[in-house]
């Protein structure tokens, strides 16, 4: 009780001290309002204490040089890429899974930044309205919006726009990062042999594959491949093996995750009587990408580079 009283007093004092500050600089650092998955979110000041959920959000902040704002991460898809490893070191990992609202609030964040919209529900990090009432802003990677503002077919313009939006929320300059990504994208020479590819994420009986409008399609398309499931109007889909056998792709992109390794999928393909006869399996034409590369974000351009780099060593006709 006493501690609470002291804390309240401290807050009052702090409020008293800081209240005039915005009034002194009314326009130089005005509020930023964004509409995020249909929810308007206003940032009076740049967020200082951010909890990130899923790798896309963590890596976006690291790429913008905002690693020091992250007070905790949760539900990461895997380790961050080498270039940001030093910045990510020592960041608190709340949970390997979806964190509870209490665990998130315990870190006193001013922003919860999620890679999946499903993070904002009562049985995960909390409803957005509830967080807002507690003074905690929420932000979903716009490409992952599902309830409203559902994005159409993903393009790099959208990814660059999202980098800019996050940069504006944090009042930093995102143009260097965007320029770097644009430059790298322009330097990519797509493969011109008309290769077909399957993006195989998980599942043995009913494979879960990259479909026609999301990050997997964008990566394959940019690399010059034709996705065998380009016609499905989804980011992902559960497909039947029969349609894969019929399409007989030239390449198989295997997603590597701790819980479902690329090797396990490769073993399965090679030991199956029909799937072992697929052209890509017979030619060992596999490309391996980490799970996080399948989500739209700052990893998308590097994913294309990685795909084309691995393609050089493969035998395809």
């Amino acid at each position, binding site marked *: 009780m006493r501690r609470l009283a002291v804390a309240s007093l401290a807050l009052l004092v702090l409020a008293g001290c800081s209240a005039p500050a915005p009034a002194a600089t009314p326009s130089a650092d005005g509020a930023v309002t964004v509409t995020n998955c249909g929810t308007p979110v206003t940032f009076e000041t740049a967020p200082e204490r951010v909890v990130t959920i899923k790798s896309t959000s963590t890596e976006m902040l690291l790429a913008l040089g905002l690693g020091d704002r992250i007070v905790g991460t949760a539900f990461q898809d895997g380790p961050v890429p080498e270039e940001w490893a030093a910045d990510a070191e020592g960041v608190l990992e709340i949970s*390997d899974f979806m964190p509870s609202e209490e665990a998130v609030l315990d870190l006193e964040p001013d922003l919860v930044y999620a890679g999946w919209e499903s993070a904002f529900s009562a049985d995960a990090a909390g409803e957005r309205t509830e967080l807002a009432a507690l003074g905690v802003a929420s932000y979903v990677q716009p490409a992952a919006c599902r309830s409203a503002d559902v994005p159409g077919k993903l393009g790099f313009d959208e990814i660059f726009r999202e980098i800019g939006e996050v940069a504006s929320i944090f009042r930093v300059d995102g143009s260097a990062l965007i320029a770097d990504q644009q430059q790298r994208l322009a330097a990519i020479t797509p493969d011109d042999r008309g290769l077909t590819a399957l993006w195989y994420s998980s599942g043995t*009986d009913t494979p879960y594959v990259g479909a026609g409008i999301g990050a997997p399609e964008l990566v394959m398309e940019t690399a010059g491949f034709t996705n065998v*499931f380009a016609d*499905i109007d989804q980011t992902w889909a*559960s497909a*039947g093996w029969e*349609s894969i*056998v019929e399409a007989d792709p030239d390449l198989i992109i295997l997603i590597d995750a701790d819980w479902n390794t690329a090797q396990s999928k490769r073993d399965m393909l090679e030991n199956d009587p029909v799937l072992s006869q697929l052209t890509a399996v017979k030619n060992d034409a596999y490309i391996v990408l980490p799970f996080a590369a399948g989500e739209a974000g700052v990893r998308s351009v590097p994913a294309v580079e990685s795909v084309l780099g691995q393609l050089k060593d493969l035998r395809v006709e």
Partner: protein
Amino acid sequence: MSRPKAVSKPGARVSTRRSAATRPAVVGVLLTAGLLASIAAAVTIGSADLSVPDVIGSIAAHLGIGQSPLDTLRDGIVWELRLPRILTAACVGAGLALSGAVMQALTRNQLADPYLLGLSSGASLGAVSVLLLGVAVLLPVAAFAGALAALAVTLGLAGALGRITPTRTVLAGVAVSSLAGAITSFVIFWSVTGDSYRQILGWLLGSLSGARWPAVAIAGIALLVVGVPIALSGRVLDAFAFGDTTASSLGVPVQAVRWVLLGGTALLTGAMVSVSGAIGFVGLVLPHAVRLLTGPGHRALLPLAALVGAVFLVWADTLARSLFDPRELPVGIVTALIGAPVFALLLARRRSEA
């Protein structure tokens, strides 16, 4: 169609029985023909665009007649993907419908299904251990072991409470199901990462998409060795319908028969669940649907339920894999989606006739 009226007139019952005895045989022959036709039709349907003559040619080639007109991959679609899946569907459908009919008779409970004694929950626990915890056993083996373990615990619990009666068995099954279900949920909740929940979700809903020839062998052998004798046990089950005391006085060793049939049904169901996951609806509702058509006598009900189950699941699975081609649905969704309205229709028809 005069049968329901005859039931209300006891005097007419004998003659109705006699005419009904020839009818199931005719229906059985028709259903067998229908099953063969369904299998033949289903094998020509799928996301790959294969012509009917090519499919027939491919199957003939594997049976030693001529050369397959298809290349290796398309031949594989017919012989390694479609045909074993369809045959597994037929065996599983037959096994589940048969098990459901027997369970309903043994427990004298209309809501009994093959999974009543904790079998599907036990099998799910086995499957989850393999899919999520990485226990290094083949999935069907783990699922089968889980199903039998659950059965053993259920019967052990029922036996520990005294004589094994229908009510005790059902209640023990409910307890075991809940426990195994809770452990399964815990494992899923605790260890699912990324998109690994999809595989287990498909299994829990019941899916035949992984059925290849080993699955045909498991389901087929179980159906022949365990299912056929059970399907021929209708006379004993008819005696059960009048209660344990009457059955004893008719010379049926009640406890022994109940044990043997429960054990047999459980083995059969365990084998089916191990290759297909817990497909719902078939075992619960198809026996009722067939009963509406054949009457309550088990001598006709058991074989006919098996045949109807086989035809039903072949078509349900064909829809599951081709309706939203190239996307797939777990067949367990389709069975209930088609089955429930059809069953409601049958119920409504019976009411208007009665």
